[in-house]
């Protein structure tokens, strides 16, 4: 057995736990679906949960790993959602591509690519700014994307795509795919939970590998001390761009999956509030903590639905729960207790592996 440094082993365990958690959750839920023991309510939320998990993990890459506060993440999601809806509708109507899986794959890839292009365009001017300025500019870009989409008209006829901006000037025989303020319309929902699971795994592979690579260390160095990193010859803008664009691509893919889960998508779904929502997932899960992002995104998406019993008071209860969790996770006593709990597990695990190693 190759000798591993302590930090390397710790990281390996962390990554294994993250993947294992996602895979186990997937298997449990799939068997629940097969047994029909799952409630409709939970089943209906599976795809949105996958989307929000990917959103949270990708935003964590920008905020936690790269250390830049981005408030426009929902903008990239909307680019992905609209692209996915248009590509899927176009493939179906123009090329009669009936296979939903193939259509979904192409649509999600296209959503990721377009969001990546948007991320690059936005990143070039934005990443030259620092701190609060960057936050405000990303916020503004998120709103610009939403407002552009609000006056965008796309239709398809005879295998061609027709675009129109501001005014709806399209040939009369087109089938509308994006209809201005009405959003993307007549989407045939093709997203599946399995696709969501695959996307989460893909996201984890990309993000965890990036974080633990040479580039990832450079990104973290820029976060911890920009001047020191620059003096060591690290190209700060390049590495920040890398994190930012990767996150945008992942958000676009999540958006495409999200858009294709519903029969319609409207621009008002991707407001500034939605970006803040994802930010809440990230902060609650812990900055830089991918596993935490996954758990918090899942719990906070499911929570309002569990609280339906409280009827009109549920958003109030939701807010209170949010405050309590924030206080609890920042309480030194509770934190110490959690660390101790973690240590106990870790010791057991390590002893287990050492024994295993000795036996060999």
């Amino acid at each position, binding site marked *: 057995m190759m000798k591993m440094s302590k930090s390397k082993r710790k990281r390996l365990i962390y990554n294994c736990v993250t993947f294992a958690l996602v895979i186990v959750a997937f298997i449990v839920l799939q068997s629940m679906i097969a047994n029909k023991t799952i*409630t*409709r*309510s939970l*089943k*209906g*939320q599976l795809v*949105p949960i996958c989307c929000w998990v990917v959103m949270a993990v990708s935003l964590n890459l920008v905020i936690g790993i790269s250390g830049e506060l981005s408030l426009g993440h929902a903008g990239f999601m909307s680019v992905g959602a609209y692209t996915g809806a248009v590509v899927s509708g176009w493939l179906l109507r123009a090329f009669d591509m009936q296979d939903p899986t193939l259509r979904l794959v192409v649509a999600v890839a296209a959503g990721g690519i377009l969001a990546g292009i948007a991320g690059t365009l936005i990143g070039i001017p934005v990443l030259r700014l620092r701190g609060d300025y960057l936050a405000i500019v990303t916020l503004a870009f998120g709103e610009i994307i939403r407002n552009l989409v609000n006056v965008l008209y796309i239709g398809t006829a005879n295998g061609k795509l027709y675009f129109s901006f501001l*005014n709806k000037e399209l040939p009369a025989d087109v089938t509308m795919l994006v209809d201005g303020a*009405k*959003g993307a*319309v*007549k989407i045939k*929902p093709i997203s599946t939970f399995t696709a969501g699971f695959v996307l989460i795994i893909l996201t984890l592979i990309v993000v965890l590998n990036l974080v633990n690579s040479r580039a990832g260390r450079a990104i973290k160095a820029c976060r911890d001390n920009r001047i020191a990193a620059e003096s060591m010859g690290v190209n700060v803008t390049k590495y920040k761009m890398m994190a930012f664009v990767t996150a945008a691509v992942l958000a676009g893919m999540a958006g495409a999956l999200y858009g294709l889960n*519903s*029969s*319609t*998508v*409207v621009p008002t*779904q991707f407001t500034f509030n939605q970006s803040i929502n994802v930010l809440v997932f990230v902060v609650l899960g812990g900055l830089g903590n991918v596993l935490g992002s996954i758990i918090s995104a899942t719990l906070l998406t499911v929570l*309002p*639905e569990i609280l*339906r019993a409280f*009827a*009109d008071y*549920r*958003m109030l209860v939701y807010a209170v729960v949010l405050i309590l969790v924030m206080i609890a996770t920042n309480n030194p006593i509770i934190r110490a207790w959690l660390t101790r709990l973690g240590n106990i597990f870790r010791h057991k695990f390590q002893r287990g592996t050492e024994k295993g190693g000795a036996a060999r």
Partner: protein
Amino acid sequence: MKKLFAVLMAAVMLMSCTAVLAEGEAVTLKIAHIGPTTGAAALYGLATLHGAEVAVEEVNAAGGKYKIELINEDDEHNVEKVINAYNAALDAGAQMILGTTTSKPCEAAGAQGYVDRVFFLTPSASSTAVTEDKDNVYQICFSDPNQGAASAQYIAEHKLGTKIAVIYNNADVYSTGIRDTFVEKGKELGLEIVSETTFTDETTDFTVQVADAQNKGAEIVFLPMYYTPASMILQTAAAKEYKPIFFGVDGMDGILSVEGFDTSLAEGVMLLTPFVATSADEKVANFVSKYKAAYNEVPIQFAADAYDGIYILVEAAEKAGITAEMEAEEVCDLMIAAMQEITVDGITGSMTWDATGAVTKTPMAATIVNGEYVFE
């Protein structure tokens, strides 16, 4: 001791028998109301919920064939949340859905219901996309463009005039949709459209449009638009001392509450609306007084639509022979068939439906008199 026991047993059995009989009489119907009861559109969701609650109370008190259990789920006027609300309603055992209140969520939930086979009756979602490509969604209100046809019909039937001017917003689907069907139906009914002018969202001066109508001698000016531009048109016409009949659609509802608008200018304006709370009609008065007593406010059109909705569902359920044990999937196709056969006399008119899910009812128009909406 044995005797006493026997008597007791007999008594228990008798009681349980009567209990079974009593239960056999009323079938419990589980109806879910879905609408935004929180958030920005809560005004509308609460109106439909309260309207439905008034009707449910009446139906249950009347002791007919059905007893209704109303389930309420909040959709926050959000396309993602409405699916959660819909699933939660079905988890709670809903057999059919009264909703959803607003158009865009109704489009999303209706499409899901089309796949799952769940019956929807929406009180107030008026866009055409709500019923398009689905056989499971029925409307109580007119769809947006159908208001145009209904207006033309009303004008022709009541012989309000034959020379008509149309001013519409050509950058707005609502406005152009209504204009299109109005012109089409108008031609059919022999209405002469003498002037047709357009504006956009940015227009603040309506002199050209009003002058064109005036010069061509229009007796009626049809205004398919929301109340803000309409209020400007009324001001312009007043300045020109041009006094035709102004005829609006449901977007005109609310013109009396425009800030800084002299409501005396709106005197005599007519608008297509199915419900006016001050109506002398006995059924309407009964609904309004009960609604006021329960919620301490005057019901709006949305509440009246939902109130009718409960009666429509009960009538259709009776026709379809829905029982308490039926699942939503089974109920759906039976209800679809029944909806096309029934005629319901509600407080928003006498209604029938065709296979598209769109309602056919006699259009009613209110006139503004002394700053209040009144029916003829």
